[in-house]
């Protein structure tokens, strides 16, 4: 039994959900570039609609990544603030697993494994393989950021003999389009509803962390970072 709030801004989508003992309510918007404007008002709206206070919650879950670096930090920052302020534990949830669960919930008859891909730019995808596990999902491989060519040549993919479905916008890469699959469904996005569902199980298992440990999982940790020397230029003064 638990009351869990989940937040996600790992892609262009922005969503919040409340899981009250398995009863889900949520708000979802596609709000590219305006996550900071929308996320906290959506949290407030959802809590008020359910007559809840932050302090009534058992935990806060969030889409910890992979995904847009900035989006992940906005969410982690807001979750840290809420969880630290209301003394709540945090449950980080994989964006890719949440996408897989969303697809399974929308397609109850499908039991094939899912190959989840988000576009990571720089000719790479955030990549994961998931299978149904009861009402939820389980990962079959460790999530990674890899190029479409590596995906196509991977032994994990070969082992499936085309008996899987590709989901997520990362499947737009031509190399991945050539891969034999049962189906490819690009229009699948993370949704806080699915994070709230996964989080309830993790909460029951005691898999929670402190507000400080509410950190994004970027997967991409070393690239040739571009520096920017000019921090605030004099145009700040011009109207």
């Amino acid at each position, binding site marked *: 039994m638990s009351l869990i709030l989940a937040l996600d801004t790992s892609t262009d989508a922005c969503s919040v959900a409340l899981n009250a003992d398995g009863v889900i309510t949520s708000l979802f918007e596609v709000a590219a570039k305006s996550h900071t404007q929308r996320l906290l*008002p959506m949290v407030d709206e959802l809590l008020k609609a359910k007559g809840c206070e932050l302090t009534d919650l058992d935990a806060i879950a969030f889409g910890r990544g992979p995904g847009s670096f900035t989006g992940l930090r906005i969410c*982690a920052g*807001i979750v*840290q603030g*809420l969880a630290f302020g209301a003394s709540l534990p945090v449950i980080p949830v994989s964006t890719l697993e949440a996408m897989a669960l969303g697809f399974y919930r929308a397609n109850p008859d499908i039991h094939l494994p899912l190959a989840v891909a988000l576009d990571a730019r720089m000719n790479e995808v955030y990549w994961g393989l998931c299978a149904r596990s009861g009402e939820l999902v389980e990962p079959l491989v460790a999530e990674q950021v890899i190029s479409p060519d590596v995906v196509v040549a991977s032994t994990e993919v070969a082992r499936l003999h085309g008996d899987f479905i590709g989901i997520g916008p990362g499947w737009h890469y031509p190399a991945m389009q050539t891969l034999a699959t049962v189906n490819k469904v690009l229009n699948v996005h993370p949704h806080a509803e699915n994070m709230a569902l996964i989080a309830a199980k993790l909460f029951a298992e005691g898999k929670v962390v402190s507000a400080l440990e509410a950190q994004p999982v970027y997967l991409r940790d070393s690239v040739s970072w571009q520096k920017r020397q000019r*921090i605030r230029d004099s145009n700040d003064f011009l109207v």
Partner: protein
Amino acid sequence: MRVLGLETSCDETGVAVYDSERGLLAHVLYTQIALHAEYGGVVPELASRDHVRKLLPLINEVMEKSDTGPADIDAIAYTSGPGLVGALMVGASFGRSLAYAWKVPAIGVHHMEGHLLAPMLEANPPEFPFVALLVSGGHTQLVKVNSLGDYELLGESIDDAAGEAFDKAAKMLDLDYPGGPQVARLAERGVDGRFKFPRPMVDRPGLDFSFSGLKTATLTAVNANKQANGLPDDQTCADIANAFQAAVVDTLVIKCKRALEQTGMKTLVIAGGVSANKKLRADLDSELAKIGAKVFYARHEFCTDNGAMIAYAGCQRLLAGQHETLAINIKARWPLDSLSSL
């Protein structure tokens, strides 16, 4: 009123608690200089990643140091611009949502207003109105400060900021990042007058600055004296640094005096990283005394980015009744004179 202030606009994570009755209660700072040193400049993505790791531990530390509990905090202030978007978002997202959880107002603070008001944290603060010189790696501006929030731009650099010129001179002299303070240190060993660099735009009317010509003069001197290793000998480097610093400081002093004359004011405030420069402070002290004016500056640690100035500025805006909605607003570009006066 007690305000928690958060600064994350660039490469320093600063957190402080300011109380309108008791003054500054505590402040802590984590600098990412070492993180960015190998790149020779701030890497925005790395800066943002570090802020999201460091903010909470620093808040715990400052709350403990100031003997403050959540119930004692009346508002949370955070830098909402100008600065690096990704870095600003970390502090603003965290600060805004913490204020929501604690059910207190949130206040978005203009980073340069924070700098401008930093000398107010000192025992003998300046009084309004005054002329302010904002001088840092990103800014060289003369501002007429009529009252809190009522700012008029008098002049600014048409090219490099003074701090930027210092950093570029440091690169020419092969000094470690961040180079500005190293140039100043090297200049102390230099012989006055061995090199003479131009004082750009001092012979022209107006209060604008230009430092790019000075950069060229410095490079010319370095190249004319370089040895087999590509650098002049140690003493010559010091002499060049000395001449460079003298030219920047002279230019700033001349324009500050001119701004005071034009506005008829007798108080100058200097703020921003370069306001920590010893020679600038000493020369302004002596030159302004000659015209019956006085210069005010913050202690060294509050010249560079810090949380104390944000907590202070936020507290002033809180007292004036300002606060944010639930939407978190970040402004990478934000003219100081577009601020609302209080």
